[in-house]
């Protein structure tokens, strides 16, 4: 696991998200109302909606295209919909956020 620093908690609006471009595709980084940070693939398993553009509520996000709801903690779709999205490890130290990516995957670039 390699850790990459991507910015500070303050860079993300509370109950909001930003995205990070990586060679593996975009990653959505979310900040909840209680300042927890989560990262998941920015790609809805339904039809590829950019999850970082959805409305954030609790520790969930609602996809902007067709309203599937995903848990930011587990990446699982909630309610009747079935699917999941990859979660990415996050570390916050002194307000600075890092995300962890697998070297093997990175090397594949």
């Amino acid at each position, binding site marked *: 696991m390699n850790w990459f620093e991507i910015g500070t908690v303050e860079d993300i609006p509370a109950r909001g998200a930003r995205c*990070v471009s990586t060679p593996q595709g975009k990653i959505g980084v979310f900040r909840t109302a209680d300042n927890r940070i989560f990262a998941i693939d920015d790609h809805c398993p339904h039809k*590829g909606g950019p999850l970082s553009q959805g409305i954030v*509520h*609790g520790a969930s996000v609602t996809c902007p295209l067709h309203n599937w709801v995903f848990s930011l903690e587990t990446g699982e779709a909630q309610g009747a919909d079935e699917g999941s999205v990859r979660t990415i490890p996050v570390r916050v130290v002194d307000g600075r956020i890092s995300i962890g990516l697998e070297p093997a995957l990175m090397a594949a670039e």
Partner: protein
Amino acid sequence: MTERLVIIGNGMAPGRMLEHLLEIAPNRYQISIFNAEPRVNYDRIMLSPVLSGEKSYEEIVIHGDGWYVANGITLYKGHKVVEIDREAKTVTSEHGAVEPYDKLVIATGSVPFIIPVPGKDLPGVLSYRDLDDVNAMLIAAQSRQKAIVIGGGLLGLEAAAGLKERGMDVTVLHVMPTLMERQLDPAAGYLLQKAIEARGIKVVTRANTKRIVGETRVEGVELDDGTFIPATLVVMAVGIRPNAGLAQQAGLAVNRGIVTDDQMRTSDPDILSLGECAEVGGRVYGLVAPLYQMAKVAAATLAGSDGEQFVHVETPTKLKVTGIDLYSVGDFADGDDREEIVLRDASAGVYKRVILKEDRVIGTVLFGETADGPWFADLQKKQTDISEMRDTLIFGQSFQGGASADPLAAVAALADDAEICGCNGVCKGKIVSTITSKGLTSLDDVRAHTKASASCGTCTGLVEKLMTLTLGDSYNPAAVQPICGCTDLGHDDVRRLIKAKRLKTIPAVMQELEWKTSCGCAKCRPALNYYLVCDWPDEYADDYQSRFINERVHANIQKDGTYSVVPRMWGGMTSSQELRAIADVVDKFQIPAVKVTGGQRIDMLGIRKEDLPAVWADLGKAGFVSGQAYAKGLRTVKTCVGSDWCRFGTQDSTGLGIRIEKFMWGSWTPAKLKLAVSGCPRNCAEATCKDIGVICVDSGFEIHFAGAAGLDIKGTDVLGLVKTEDEALEVIVALTQMYREQARYLERIYKWAKRIGHDEIRRQVLDDVERRKAYFDRFVFSQKFAQVDPWSERVSGKDKHEFRPMANLSFQPAAE
């Protein structure tokens, strides 16, 4: 080998027969249907709601095209059968299609009776039987002129109410002294007439039509006594005749209708008949309940099972005019051997009469209060001896046997075989057992599985009570629909409490109103944000994290995650300079698609999110502002060229449209808001299907509202006529503000207006001048904070984070 089944007529009776047949003998026949009407099977009963605008044709289709395909049935649409050759066993349509049959079913329904008076064939004289009649009436109704309905029976009154609803000035001519005299006694007929007149429909009884007047098209009706009543539309609804001509030609036994035995077989054993064209047990029928019974019997006969027989049952009559409750069943003529019990409540407009013979109910007429109808009908059907409860009989079921006056208890007390849905002959036991065995939880489920409440819908209340009884508290239709799972409160309560408790932030609302989740969800947050923006325009800080992405970034997200950009083109007007600026932006940012929208402006599609601020910067230099094509807010004001250019234009429709758009842009509304201004009644700007529309006329501006042309289609209603542009603007703005303050989030004007009543709106924003002014002023105040172009704001740096990735990780192959 499969046998060939041919059906003539594709109405409600054979449609139901096929459902039974496909269930009990799925592969027995290869089926073909000929239908003179060029369409699938639809719910004819529901034509009146289509006429009044409460439903669309699509909503009343019973079997869509796919159903025929899925069941391998050939449907000849628009093929009238002109010959049955019983020797060769074939039928031939007027277009020459020939089908051989082993079994034939004749279900040609009825034809409307046309009174043989001079002028009956003039253009503008219609009957009321099928969708074509409804469409013709709807076109005629656009003129908003005078209509005459001849016939004060069920169909005539439904037609009159529908035409009135569509804005026509309607007179009903009825030859008898009271309305619906075949189903109602004179007292109820009188109450009905008052109720009809209260809706602004004129009623003339004892009116004998002498001739229909007109040169090239209808101009009016002349009565026996010389009275002339002008009209541009005459609807004849004086009765129906079984359509038995074809059967007669083929040499089948025909009396009033096509004679059948109690298994629906005609005098030729290979030919069956059912529906309104059939005569069984010496009677013909004109309501669907007995026809559905015929359908069941005919299916059994075709499947070769002998058990089913048709038996006569009295069918209750109900009138499907919203707001008029009327129920009648059985025989209610006076007679020496009969007794009657009557209850009148003048203040409530209630009249009830039960006719008894030898202590048995033989007829019931209820007006104004009809909940006990099925109970009386059940007493009649079962021939119950009522002598024990004679004194309280008229007060209805809830007074009997010490039961409470609770309507639920009354339904609970019904016997299992009490009929709930008259149209489909579904009894209580069937509904309850289906709910339990299939685990049904919604009214739609119950409709789908039992057919109860799926036809005319008047039993919906009873079905819902049964659901409450069966499912307990988990089903409560009367309960307010909560906004979402985060609260038990509905939209209206939340709006009221926000004002009453002066709640001014989303957390305050959630705290005070005891939200069940920590920070709401994607359903309630946008609603709360709108309510707060609307109620506290100067104090509330708009919460962008509670807005849907489109409103957050002021562009429309597309399926591939790119965005589209639609600048305002005021009233649809543009210029070479504007078009050049758009062309330059398209080239510079390599925008893949440019489209003229349905809203009279230009859409640039496929723009990368990162490019949005730069695109807006260039557009802004040419004077463009956001078209808010993404907003639950003012979208477009479409216009036509009007008196500036058009030879018919009566006013400057383009100018007025632009003025309105410039006045109202930027405002947030419960759902999107679209307007249009047409320069004359030709209506080239399509103003009569908009949320708010204006039709310019010589004498001023006709203001329309509550149209729809999206998921639903509905013509507007006229709010009123005003003389000046200033007044038009004031009324439109006041109406918008009333809607902003009262509607539920995502509720378009037409839905809101239907809920609170068109007259109430008229009263508040047209008649009550002071109130209008107050609404207007509140709108103007809120615009001070709303009319800020969101694009230029973002060009100058607002919400920068939205348009840039937080980080760009272009890492090297592993640092091993």
